[in-house]
């Protein structure tokens, strides 16, 4: 685990423009008590309101999906030539959001960015729930969803198997692996904290439930020894995985021959976009969360600042992606590519494109200012913009590429319907519902990792080694 490797770094921490990652005065005991209190104390009122809201959105999802199953995907706005609409847009959007979680918990871990410690837990939860939402769409978008299991390789009486050249099958493998690994990673991280809750709670039922989850964890040196190894290995595995997942998602388009899809820049550009969107979502969640649970001590402006920086960086990569797409189109001299580019900028969906630029390219530039980076409100607003922008990006990629492809005679137009919107809003409901349950019943911040970074604690290898 990461913290102050060298005094210079530690000193740097003290500089005013670098607020600490934990407020001064905390001890292992205080961290433990304060974080576990969030779970063990009585439920705050606002939680019920929040949950009720989220749950009603979830019901919207239920209704939309039922109507969808009753009637078929025709209730959506899709047609030919535009065979994919909100369904795949949302799929890519959610998957993208998921990425930040894994990035924070795995990649930053390997990079020893200790500031990740206080946000990785709920970032991972966010990943999990985002992937859950994303995972719905590949099923929902099917014309015959009840046959979704045909996408998995299983022996059957038809002697038929999936067609492994299809990017959709790659998706199945990538997304299900991603979901599994994220879940494992998350759970493994939880085990010691579940033990803590088990030991803290005075309520028999809670003890049993947490105790069950803790599997009898007792923090023995031998346990920690294997545990650390496993945790680092998982991080090492999750890192290439997370990069591969959005690469594979981008293959859905890059493998296609449609102008606007068939581009080699897609994988890096998608991954960057995913992290961009993901951090935006982390901020959207973290900022209210720290306020509501008074966790400012643990999620400090330092964290917000750093996430702002990451957004700025990835945002610029994404913008580079847009520009290079246009450049390639022009440079290729290919009539289809050139028309595609022209159509994005001047076609019927031009306003989507301009809004996209506003949200993803213009607004984030404010992050250059420290005052903005350190202001929760500003960051919150910007992250909302980015989420919208990233949704629009997927809309542009899918819809504007399909609606005017090769043969002018088969051009079309696409509008979402109320059911498209219902499904989208519905999955947001699902996401929030799960998130509310999570923050209520599980420690939103990794307790045992916090213990390692409170000043004075002799966390693992970082305590001064006696000669």
């Amino acid at each position, binding site marked *: 685990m990461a913290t102050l490797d060298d005094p210079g770094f530690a000193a740097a921490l003290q500089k005013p423009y670098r607020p600490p990652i934990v407020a001064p005065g905390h001890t292992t005991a205080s961290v433990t008590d304060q974080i576990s209190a969030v779970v063990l104390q009585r439920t705050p009122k606002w939680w019920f309101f929040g949950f009720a809201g989220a749950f009603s959105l979830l019901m919207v999802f*239920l209704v939309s*999906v*039922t109507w*969808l*199953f*009753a*009637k*078929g*995907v*025709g*209730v959506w*706005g*899709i*047609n*030919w*030539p*535009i*065979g*994919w609409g909100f369904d795949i847009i949302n799929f890519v959007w959610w998957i993208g959001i998921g990425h930040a979680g894994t990035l924070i918990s795995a990649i930053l871990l390997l990079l020893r960015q200790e500031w990740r410690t206080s946000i990785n837990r709920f970032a991972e939860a966010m990943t999990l729930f985002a992937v859950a939402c994303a995972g*719905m769409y590949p*099923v929902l*978008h*099917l*014309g*015959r*969803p*009840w*046959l*979704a*299991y*045909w*996408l998995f390789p299983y022996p059957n009486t*038809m002697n*038929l*198997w*999936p067609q492994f*050249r*299809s*990017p*959709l*099958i790659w998706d*199945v493998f990538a997304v299900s692996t991603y979901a599994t690994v994220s879940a494992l990673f998350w759970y493994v991280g939880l085990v010691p904290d579940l033990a803590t809750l088990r030991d803290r709670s005075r309520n028999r039922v809670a003890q049993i439930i947490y105790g069950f989850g803790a599997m009898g964890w007792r923090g023995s040196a031998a346990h920690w020894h294997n545990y650390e190894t496993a945790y680092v290995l998982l991080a090492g595995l999750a890192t290439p995985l997370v990069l591969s997942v959005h690469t594979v998602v981008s293959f*859905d388009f890059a*493998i*296609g*021959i*449609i102008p606007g899809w068939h581009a080699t820049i897609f994988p890096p550009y998608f991954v960057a976009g995913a992290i961009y969107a993901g951090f935006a979502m982390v901020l959207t969640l973290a900022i209210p969360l720290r306020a509501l649970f008074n966790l400012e001590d643990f999620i400090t402006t330092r964290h917000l600042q750093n996430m702002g920086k990451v957004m700025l960086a990835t945002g610029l990569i994404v913008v580079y992606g847009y520009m290079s797409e246009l450049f390639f189109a022009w440079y290729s001299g290919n*009539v289809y590519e050139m028309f595609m580019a022209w159509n994005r900028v001047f076609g*019927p969906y031009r306003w989507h494109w301009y809004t996209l630029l506003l949200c993803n390219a213009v607004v984030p530039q404010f992050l250059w200012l420290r005052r903005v980076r350190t202001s929760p409100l500003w960051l919150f607003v910007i992250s909302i913009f980015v989420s919208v922008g990233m949704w629009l990006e997927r809309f542009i990629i899918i819809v504007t590429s399909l609606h005017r*492809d*090769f*043969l*002018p*005679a*088969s*051009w*079309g*137009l696409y509008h979402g*319907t*109320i059911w498209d919107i219902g499904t989208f809003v519905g999955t947001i409901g699902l996401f929030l519902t799960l998130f509310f349950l999570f923050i209520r019943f599980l420690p939103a911040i990794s307790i045992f990792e916090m213990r390692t970074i409170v000043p004075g604690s002799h966390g693992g290898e970082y305590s001064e080694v006696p000669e």
Partner: protein
Amino acid sequence: MNPKKANPMDSVNAKGKCEAAGVRPPEPARLDLAEVRERLRAKRGPEFWRSLDELAATPAFQDLLHREFPRHASEWTDGVSRRRFLQLASASLALAGLTGCTKQPVEKIIPYVRQPEQLIPGRPLYFATALTLGGYATGVLAESHQGRPTKIEGNPDHPASLGATDVFTQAAVLTLYDPERSQTILRAGRQGGTWGGFVGEAGATLRALQAINGRGLRLLTGAVTSPTLAAQIADLLRRFPEARWHRWEPAGRHQSAAAAARAFGRPLETRYDFTRARVIVTLGADVLCEGPEGVRYSRDFADGRRVRGDRQEMSRVYAVESVPSHSATVADHRLQLTPPQVEAFTLALAQRLGAAPSGGPVVSDATAVRWLEAVAQDLEQNRGASLVIAGEYASPAAQVLVHAVNQALGNVGSTVYHLEPLEADPVDHVASLRELVRDLNAGQVELLLMLDGVNPVYTAPADFGFAQALQAAQKNTVLVHHGLFDDETSEYCHWHIPAAHELESWSDARAFDGTVSLIQPLIDPLYGGKTSHEVLAALSNQPDVTSYDVVRQFWSTRLTAGGAFEAAWREALLKGLIPGTAASPTPAALAGGAVEQAAGEILAALGRVEQGQITLLFRPDPAIWDGRFASNAWLQELPKPIVKLTWDNALILSPKTAERLNVSFHETVEVSAGGRKVDAAVWILPGVAEDTALLTLGYGRKRAGKGTGQGFNAYALRTSNALWSLPAVQVRGTGGRYELACTQNHHLIRGDEVNEDALATEAAAERHVIRTGTLAELRHDRDFIQKEREKPAADDSMYPNYKYPGHAWGMAIDLNVCTGCSACVVACQSENNIPVVGKQQVLAGREMHWLRIDRYFAGDLDAPQIHHQPLPCMHCETAPCEVVCPVAATAHSDEGLNDMVYNRCVGTRYCSNNCPYKVRRFNFLRYSDKDTPVLALVNNPDVTVRMRGVMEKCTYCVQRIEQAKIESKVEHKPIAANQVQTACQQVCPTRAIVFGDINDPQWDVTRWKADPLNYGLLEEINTRPRTTYLAKLRNPNPLLEPAEGAEHGHA
């Protein structure tokens, strides 16, 4: 809602729906959301659901639905019971699969009691019969599966068909089964009338009339060429000397008949022989794929245009017209003039060729003058081998002049010939109908019998006021209507007798050349319809005589060619026609003074024309003709050639005129003339002349099954003196909006449509979608089409190529002769059980046609060239669709077919997204109607009926391929060259489509593909399409288009 009647076609509109349920449509009560909520409040549990269903079934709700959520209206059409909804709710809760293992339901198998001989269960039978349009017959072979007709093919032995058919003939089977057809005899608009009752009442009236020689007995029919029917009527008239027989054929050849009467003194019918014509000039005429002889003409015309291998000759075609016609899309030169200018040009041409007295500079416009000279020279150089056609729509005067021109050019007898009228007892329909109206108003009609679906209330000229006349006559006249549908006319009648469809009838009729064709039934009348023969027989006190007896009895005396009647009769039935009954050409001399008078008339008319006046043209609708096919969903959903509208007609204007009138797509206007007015929605079509508007007949019907309420009624403006062209109409925007469903571009981008036409035209050009060139270019360099665009090498791939050692199926389409008639589209729909989706779904961009015909403009959009491109599946060898399918639901067969396996498809739509040609079609909702049992009968049993949520597309009619392979294996002999024909190929009047084994040089397709004109669409992206195109060639006149300046390549 009412799941029983759930039917994609019903989704079209509310009235259509409740009529289907057998209810008279009340004026739809207004209903708004608030009221709906009101009704639903307080309801709980089951009764909530019941009331919801009831509510959904009410027309008011349907209206509301269509008003508030047009997009979602069609979702209501298949029923979801409460239980089902809850099941789904729970299923979707768990996102659980509905079923893992599929269990076959128990099915019954029902053999015959006595099996008909010559019937082999599971094998279709073909019967030669005929179908008529406007009284004229086209010979067909009807395919019958265990006694139910499923498909119509042309009869190769029949002169009007030669194996091909038009759209109407293809769609006939659907009309046969149409559940909207009238099914019971109606007495005073109510059910419960009986045949006996009718015979009794009519008989009584007749007996009363007997005394006064039948004065007051009136018969109204369409054009009749049927010898048997004519004989029956003649017999009736003999028994009732004072009786009158009136005729009204809404889209008949009235002006041609009038012109002939003026030119030759009698209403001769004019026919053309395109095989001998080297130069063809059409003056506002559309001779190809229009009317009963269109199919035959198209074939002959195409043969004169086909350039293949060493045959590098083609006829030259000039089209002078106001609205784009089929023939113009394949012409070498097209001159776009306003209707009066066309008349002027005709006169000027006649003058230039010395066929008419000169006088007055009638044509001043520079282009027109250049044209005049060029055309005239060309004609003079091809005396006797040229052909000038005015057609029915030109004024009688203009037609007289054209008769004179052809005479002057010595074409009569070689490319033009005349026949004595084929109609029995020819009369002037307009006059005949006027007389009837007069007598109705005068109360001199006792019994009016309207036979065989004639629908004057809807189709009669507006100035006749036929409806009022009937209304007035109702008191003291017995009004009898006999037809397929309970329509506008039957509403006024005391009796409505359901008619038997031609596929249910014994009868006969004459083809365009006079050949008598026998009509035999393939199935007993489904809805207890009666034929005209039976109705007439009933009036002759033989109510129980069947039409079989009548027809057979009629021919028994005449058909003794081979001596023995039986043999001759059998042979005639087998062939579908009676040999040697074709009419022979008759000599015709121009009546003196006719020409001078005609010229004078035209000059006078030209004098009356004022600048900027809009001329409204009426034309039969290319999809539903004069309105008789309004209830046929296949035809309603058929994208009209050139305009590409479905389900509606529209007031069609040129871009400039629309701009001047400040109206645009989907906007409603009021069209008025002479105190009559009609509201219509505007459609802008490049290729229409300025100051010209076009409104096709057949729409705006009140009682026409599925056609009810669609489009705008042109008849309301059509008067007896302006049958086809109404000068000086006022067009005024009314600010309303009416969504028109167009299948090409125009997916409701408000404002942008015109730009989109321009954009599409430009894009099509730079993408070389349609490759064109001139005959000169071809002669100069055989491979100029190949050089137009570089194509990837055969081995241009990182993977090795597949080998197709056995058969390798492929298709080639000759753009040079495709007239866009769309018969192939309907044939495909009929052969492959393609569902109809309804207007709302077309608006949503979800039409299902496997084969579509793309229409492209080229050049200046104010006077564009128009190209058609039939687009089936390309069956690419490196199919992009297959690679992306996650479940291998589409894969290549070992003969190179791009198979689509519906039952494996899970519906990701990825294949469609990745198809560069966008030929794949998806069942977004449940489109196939499985709730109307009778509609199941029209299905081809050899093709799976697709369910909701699966992708489908052109299969090259794989069922036909497999059938041929199986036969060859069973009979132990190889498949003969050209033995396998796809439905689109078989029906094509111009033989523009050829299919077959590209490995075998014996097949035509192999030769076509070897042709230097052969190119693959988008071949540069290396999809290696098995369907290829032959470039479109023109043979321009150097005088009009200097060869060097000929802009070639893309259109």
